[in-house]
């Protein structure tokens, strides 16, 4: 017997799957969905292949920013239990490799999107990558408890990029799709933060639940949910909205608001008594909320030209 053990995770050759994990595939799936909706609800038809290439570029660009985020956050990922199995802290991929992959894919995705569509879409994608990697990851994540609010912008850009890929423009419709995701992110994430006993504190990341307390977080969830409503319902009265979207949006907003109110009016004792049942329920509602809003936009686009297609 020997006290010396070999850590296999440090010596194993990195496979393609490990590099793919750097691109945060789960986040990428949301990006693909919202970018696709932004592209399909645009008023001009797009060639299916160009649409495919555009969504691919947006997904790869988002993945590249995920790799840059993992490169920068490798130190805190090693501390937090939730992130210890990521490729860099697990010893599967070197930090420099993640940086190289992130930069290479960023350049490729932006240039290819430019070639396939237009400069506006490419510039928006470049800004999205810059915003997530530099503004959020490097600057704000570790310096302000509002990090989730600002970081939400990075996740909100994909439908705007998809729309711009077709129209070459930023309009009130694409801004509203951006605003829905941007305003939705804080209540969605803070509901999760309330019932996930995360270890951000050990890593020195100022989460609202830690810096301002859980009572303040509950108030923030309600306020952001109220602020979200006009953007979500307002989209019904633009060219991408219609009667079906309006009905869906009103129902979803009432449902989400009721959940935010339930979270606001209870305290930690009540929450601990039922193991955060309300917070978990609202988190699930928030997932339905976003998926069904963008789904309703797709339905409206499919019904264009019919009586239910527009006002």
């Amino acid at each position: 017997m020997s006290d010396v053990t070999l850590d296999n995770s440090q010596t194993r050759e990195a496979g393609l799957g490990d590099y793919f994990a750097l691109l945060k595939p789960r986040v990428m799936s949301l990006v693909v969905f919202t970018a696709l909706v932004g592209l399909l609800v645009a008023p001009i038809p797009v060639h299916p292949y160009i649409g495919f290439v555009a969504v691919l570029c947006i997904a790869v660009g988002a993945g590249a920013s995920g790799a840059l985020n993992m490169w920068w956050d490798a130190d805190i990922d090693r501390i937090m239990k939730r992130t210890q199995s990521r490729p860099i802290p697990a010893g599967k991929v070197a930090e420099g490799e993640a940086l190289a992959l992130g930069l290479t894919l960023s350049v490729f995705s932006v240039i290819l999107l430019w070639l396939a569509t237009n400069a506006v879409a490419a510039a928006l994608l470049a800004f999205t990558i810059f915003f997530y990697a530099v503004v959020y990851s490097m600057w704000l994540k570790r310096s302000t408890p509002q990090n989730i609010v600002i970081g939400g912008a990075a996740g909100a850009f994909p439908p705007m990029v998809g729309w711009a890929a077709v129209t070459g423009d930023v309009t009130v419709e694409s801004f509203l799709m951006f605003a829905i995701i941007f305003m939705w992110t804080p209540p969605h994430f803070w509901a999760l933060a309330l019932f996930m006993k995360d270890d951000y504190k050990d890593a020195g990341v100022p989460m609202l639940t830690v810096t301002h307390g859980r009572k303040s977080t509950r108030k923030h969830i309600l306020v952001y949910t109220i602020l979200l409503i006009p953007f979500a319902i307002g989209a019904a009265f633009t060219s991408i909205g219609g009667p079906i979207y309006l009905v869906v949006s009103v129902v979803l907003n009432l449902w989400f608001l009721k959940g935010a109110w339930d979270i606001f009016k209870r305290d930690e004792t009540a929450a601990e008594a039922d193991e955060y049942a309300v917070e978990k329920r609202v988190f699930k509602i928030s997932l339905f909320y976003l998926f069904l809003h963008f789904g309703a936009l797709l339905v409206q686009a499919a019904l264009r030209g019919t009586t239910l297609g527009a006002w």
Partner: protein
Amino acid sequence: MALKVEHELHRRRIGRNAGVGLLLVGLVVLILLLTVVKVQQLDNPAQMERFDHVVRPALATEGTGQ
């Protein structure tokens, strides 16, 4: 002396190298198809000749300088 030395590293990385190779081939195909679609979308495919830096007076329209 063998012309081709099979290093242990080659065997260990074969999956990864094959994957990278396939991705690069995929990128080439992606751009090729994109080119085909872009050319087909032009009203007149002769427009493409504007970009090859060759003076072709016969194809130029008035006022374009070519």
